[in-house]
């Protein structure tokens, strides 16, 4: 099950906790992986850890030209892009009434617009191959909202609506487009929360714990696999029951 031997996967945000784990999971299933991110050092460390079948492809997702060039660079390095995982994301939290245009636009640009550009960039090859997997890493916040995250929630909900529209268009070509919506996942980002904040969050999670990056990566691995070929336009919520959607 879930054998990706001979497949190629581009993962954005591969320098982060969840992105690195996604890359490990796809690589572990036999895929060649393109590791993209802004920080080169962690990408190179990850590539070294994985050994063969790993390519470092640095990219600043707030630079439209760099984003447009990334699918081409990935295809040159790996021969194709069969699987695209749009995982990179930033936050610029602020109360809605205080949110600046820059905070809004920056989050939409990196989280949503770059996803659109990367999807466009890989579609030609997938259409020709009559096979493709696009997995957008959304968020529970895209479905439920979250105070202070109007921009982030809009971008994450936007990924889902955009992905469903694209899923309609390319379903007949063997390309699926799905989303994974993580809840609270233990990463460097959530490590910064204090005990009181953590306690408040735990109270809302029926599973009584935070999720692990491995649990997100497993969902991505399924949606990247040949076995998920009849699943498209779906959002897989991985949140310990925090929101049952």
């Amino acid at each position: 099950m879930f054998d990706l031997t001979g497949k190629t996967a581009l993962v954005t945000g591969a320098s982060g906790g969840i992105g690195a784990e996604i890359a490990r999971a796809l690589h572990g299933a036999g895929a060649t992986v393109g590791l993209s991110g802004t920080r080169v050092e962690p990408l190179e460390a990850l590539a070294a850890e994985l050994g063969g079948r790993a390519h470092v492809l640095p990219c600043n997702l707030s630079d439209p030209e760099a984003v447009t060039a990334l699918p081409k660079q990935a295809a040159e390095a790996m021969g194709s892009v069969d699987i695209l995982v749009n995982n990179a994301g930033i936050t610029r939290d602020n109360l809605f009434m205080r949110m600046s245009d820059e905070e809004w636009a920056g989050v939409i640009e990196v989280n949503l617009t770059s996803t659109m550009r990367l999807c466009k960039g890989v579609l030609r090859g997938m259409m020709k191959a009559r096979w493709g997997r696009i997995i957008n890493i959304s968020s529970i916040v895209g479905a439920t909202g979250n105070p202070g995250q109007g921009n982030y929630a809009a971008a994450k909900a936007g990924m889902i609506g955009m992905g469903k529209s694209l899923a309609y268009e390319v379903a007949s070509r063997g390309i699926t487009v799905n989303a994974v919506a993580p809840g609270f996942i233990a990463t460097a980002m959530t490590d910064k929360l204090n005990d009181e904040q953590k306690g408040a969050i735990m109270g809302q999670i029926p599973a009584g714990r935070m999720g692990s990056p491995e649990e997100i990566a497993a969902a991505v691995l399924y949606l990247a696999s040949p076995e998920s070929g009849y699943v498209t336009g779906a959002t897989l919520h991985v949140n310990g029951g925090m929101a049952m959607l």
Partner: protein
Amino acid sequence: MSDITARVKAIVVEQLGVEEEKVNEQASFIDDLGADSLDTVELVMRFEEEFGIEIPDDAAEKIQTFGDAVSFIEKAQA
């Protein structure tokens, strides 16, 4: 039949799975040859690769018949 016409016809026949006789100059990809909108995008991609040209989106929208495609490619290669 010119070389370009023959090559374009071969692509259309293969891409849309239609009989060669149906592919005449006035044949509309969508109305006569059963293409959907995504097929037309793929056709343009195939033309770009076959002839080593770039067909911008606004030009691609105007290529609606087999004749449109042949004349666009002939001009692009002239």
